[in-house]
C-alpha cells in the first residue's frame, strides 16, 4: 500500500494530469494557499528538477539555485504553471525571480505579495492589507468573487492536510510505522502539489492503513540506538541527503525546512475564531506571521527557542544545517545559532545545496564522518 501511494504521488506528470483546475504556482511557504484554493485555482508548489545553470543567462550565477532552477524549468518550453504565479517577497532572490519571470517568461498573473519580517500588530495589519490586495488583484484579473465562505472552507481543507501530516510525522518519529525520512518528506512534498482535497482523502487512508499494517513495529523500535538528527535550513532539494543520514545510522527527528515540519506546524484556529466573527484574512495573516519563523524572518530568539526545544524534547545528538548556496538569510543565521549550539555542546555540520539531483560524494563523506563522531561521542 505504501509503495503504491508513494509511487502515485511522486510522479510529477501524474500529479499534473490529476489537476482539473487552472494552476497557480507558488514558491514560498508564506504564500497563503488558502486564497488560491478559494479563488478556484489549484495551488502548485514549484519544486523543479532542472539544472539551475539553464537560467544563467537571465539571473546571476551567484544566485539562489532554487530560484534559478524554477526559472530554468519554465524557460523556453510549455509549462502548466508558467502562466499564474504568486511570489512572496521573502528574499532578494525571490524579488528578482518576480522580475525575471515577468520579463522572460511573462504569463497572465504574476503577482508579488509583500511580506513583513515580524509579527507585531502593525505587521499583521499590513500583511492582512496585502492579502486583501491579492484578492482584489485575483478578482479583477479573473472576474471572480472570492467569498468569505470559500476562504473558510479552504482554511479548513489546509488545516486537515496539516493535521494529517502532523499525525503521520508522529508515527514516523516514534517508529510506529515503517516509514523512512525520505518517504515522509516525499509525502510532505506531494501535499504541496496534489489537489488538496483528494490528497487529504488519500493521506487519511494511507495513515489508517499503515497504522494497521505496521502495528507490530511499535514493539520493535530501534530508535534509541540511533543518533538523532535535526536538519535545519531552507529547501531539501535532494532527498537522498536524508537517505544517507539514515544509511549511516542516523535518525532524522525533525526537518526544520519549508519542505519539512515548518510546512505543517500548527493550524488556523477556525472554530473558536469563527465564533467571534473574525475576518478570514485576519486569521491567515496571524497564522502565517506567527508560525515558527523561517531564517528569513527577524525573530531569532523565537527560532532559537524553538530549535532548542526540539533538541531537548527529542534528545537530538547533532544538528545538520542544509542551506542552499547563496541564501543570505540562512547563512547570516548560521554564526549565531552555531555558536549557541557549541555552548550547549551540540555538534553541528553545515552543508550547502546546489539544487542538483544527486548527492555528491563529498557531502556523503561529510555526513558519514559527522555521524561517526556523534556515535563515538555517545
Amino acid at each position, binding site marked *: 500500500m505504501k509503495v503504491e501511494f508513494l509511487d502515485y504521488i511522486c510522479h510529477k506528470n501524474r500529479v499534473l494530469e490529476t489537476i482539473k483546475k487552472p494552476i497557480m504556482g507558488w514558491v514560498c511557504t508564506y504564500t497563503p494557499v488558502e486564497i488560491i484554493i478559494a479563488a478556484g485555482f489549484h495551488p502548485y508548489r514549484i519544486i523543479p528538477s532542472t539544472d539551475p545553470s539553464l537560467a544563467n543567462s537571465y539571473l*546571476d550565477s*551567484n544566485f539562489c539555485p532554487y530560484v534559478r532552477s524554477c526559472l530554468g524549468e519554465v524557460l523556453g518550453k510549455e509549462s502548466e504553471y508558467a502562466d499564474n504565479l504568486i511570489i512572496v517577497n521573502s528574499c*532578494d532572490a525571490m*524579488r528578482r525571480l518576480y522580475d525575471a519571470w515577468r520579463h522572460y517568461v511573462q504569463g497572465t498573473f504574476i503577482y508579488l505579495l509583500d511580506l513583513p519580517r515580524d509579527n507585531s500588530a502593525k505587521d499583521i495589519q499590513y500583511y492582512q492589507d496585502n492579502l486583501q*490586495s491579492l484578492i482584489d488583484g485575483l478578482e479583477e484579473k479573473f472576474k471572480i468573487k472570492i467569498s468569505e465562505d470559500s476562504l473558510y472552507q479552504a482554511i479548513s481543507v489546509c488545516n486537515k492536510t496539516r493535521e494529517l501530516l502532523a499525525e503521520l510525522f508522529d508515527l514516523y518519529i516514534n517508529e510506529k510505522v515503517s516509514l523512512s525520512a525520505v518517504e515522509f518528506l516525499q509525502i510532505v512534498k506531494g501535499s504541496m502539489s496534489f489537489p488538496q482535497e483528494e490528497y487529504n482523502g488519500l493521506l487519511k487512508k494511507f495513515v489508517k492503513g499503515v497504522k494497521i499494517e505496521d502495528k507490530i513495529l511499535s514493539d520493535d523500535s530501534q530508535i534509541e540506538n540511533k543518533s538523532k538528527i535535526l536538519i535545519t535550513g531552507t529547501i531539501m532539494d535532494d532527498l537522498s541527503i536524508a537517505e544517507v543520514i539514515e544509511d549511516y545510522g542516523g535518525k532524522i527527528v525533525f526537518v526544520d525546512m519549508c519542505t519539512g515540519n515548518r510546512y505543517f506546524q500548527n493550524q488556523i484556529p477556525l472554530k473558536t475564531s469563527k465564533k467571534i466573527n473574525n475576518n478570514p484574512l485576519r486569521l491567515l495573516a496571524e497564522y502565517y506571521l506567527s508560525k515558527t519563523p523561517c531564517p528569513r524572518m527577524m525573530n*531569532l530568539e523565537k527560532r532559537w527557542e524553538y530549535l532548542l526545544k526540539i533538541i531537548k524534547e527529542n534528545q537530538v545528538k547533532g544538528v545538520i544545517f542544509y542551506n542552499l548556496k547563496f541564501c*543570505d538569510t540562512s547563512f*547570516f543565521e548560521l*554564526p549565531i545559532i552555531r*555558536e549557541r549550539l557549541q555552548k550547549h555542546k551540540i555538534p553541528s555540520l553545515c552543508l550547502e545545496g546546489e539544487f542538483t539531483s544527486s548527492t555528491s560524494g563529498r557531502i556523503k563523506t561529510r555526513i558519514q564522518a559527522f555521524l561517526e563522531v556523534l556515535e563515538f561521542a555517545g
Partner: protein
Amino acid sequence: MPDNFLNDDFKSALIKKIAKNSNTYNIIKAGSKLYFRKSPESFKIWLDFLFYQLKEACKKRKPVVWTNIYTPSELFYALDLFPIYPEVISGVLASIGTANYLIETSESKFYTTDLCSFYRVAAGLVLKDWFPKPDLIISSSQLCDGSTKFFRNMSKYYNCEYYLINTPYYDDLNSQKYLAAQLEEIAYKIGKVNGQHLSNEKINYFFNLSNQTREYIIKLNEFRKNVPSPLSGWDAMAYILYMFFSSLGAKKGLRFYHTLYQETEEKVNRKIGVLKEEKHRILWLHQVRPYYKNEIIQNLKENKAVISFEEVSYVYWQALDPQRPWESLAQKMTSNFGVGPIERRIKTVYNLVREYKIDGVIHFSQRGCRQSCGGAYIIKDFLQEKGIPMLILDGDGADSRNYSKGQTRTRIEAFLEMLS
C-alpha cells in the same frame, strides 16, 4: 599595508586599544591634514567629518547608533543620535588594506565567503572588538537581505537594542503609512530612553539642512552632465558617497556639498575635465566599487573612458516636508528606485544614460549582492534594445581575493573597444 601584518594576539590587543581611543583620531586627523594639504577643500571637509565621526563613536557624548546606508540620516540627527555606518567603514578599511584580515576573522566564525564582503569585514571588526560598541542599532530592510541580518547579529554580540525598519516593496500609500508608523514608533521609543523630545523646531531645523544639502547635490549632478566630465565617478563612489549617505541633516554635510559644488562649478567654467581627452562616458551601476588596491580606474583611463555618473548619486527623493515628518521620511525610502519592481531602476538608468550622454554602462556585480546583480541581465537586455552597450563586470568591493587583475582588464578593454 600588507593584509597579513596583524597576526598575533598582542598586536590585536594593541590595535583594539588604539582604535577605541578618541585621541587616536585627533592624531590621525592632524597628520592627514598635513598629508592632504594640497587636496581640494571638499576632501578635507570629508576627512574632518570622518575623524569627527570616529572620535565621537569613542567619546560617546551622544548615544551612538549603528545603521545602514539607506536609513534616512535626518532621523538620527533630529533625535540627537550619532550615526555610524559600518558598511562605509568597511570600505575605508578595504582601502587601507586591512579588510582581508577581518574577513578571515569573520570566516572563522561561520560568515561564509558567499556573503557580502562589506558585512564580512564589519563582522570581523566586531568580532575582533576593534571598534567602540554602539548604544543601539537601527537598520532598514531597504534593498538588501544581508543588512537586516548583519545588524541583527551585531545587536546580539553587543547585547544592545535593535530596531528594524521594514521597508515595504510597493511605493503606495498603504506602504508609506506602514513605514511612517514604524518610524514614528522608533522615534517615540528612543525619545523615551534618551529624553529627547522631537519638537517641530528640531524637525524643521534638520529637515531644512537636509533639503538644502539635497539642492546642492542636485546642482552638482547637473554640472556633471557637462562634457568633459568635471568629477570622476570613481571619487564620487568613495568619500563623496560617504557624505551622501551619512551627512544629510548635518551642518558638515551642507558645507561639504556647498564646497564641492563650488569646486565643480569652477572646473565646468574652466572646462577642466577628469581626463585630458574624454572618449567614452561611462555610467556605473551598483552602490559600490572596489575599494582595495586595483587597476580598474587605470584600465578606464588608459582607454580614455571616464565614469561620468553613477546611479547611486542620483537624487531620487523629494524635498522633506517638516509638516509631515514621518510620511515624508517614508516617502523618501519608498521612492528609492532600487525598491520595488526592476522597471523603476530601468527607467532611472535609461534617463541617466540620456541625460549624462552615456556611451556605455558598467554594472559592477559585487559578489554577495543579490539585489543588484539579480536585475543586471534584465537591464542589459533593455539597454541593448536601445543600442546602449552594457558590461556586467564581476568583482568584489571589499574582498580583494575575488579580484582578478588580468581578467578584469581584458573584460574592460574588450568592452571599451566595442564602444569605439
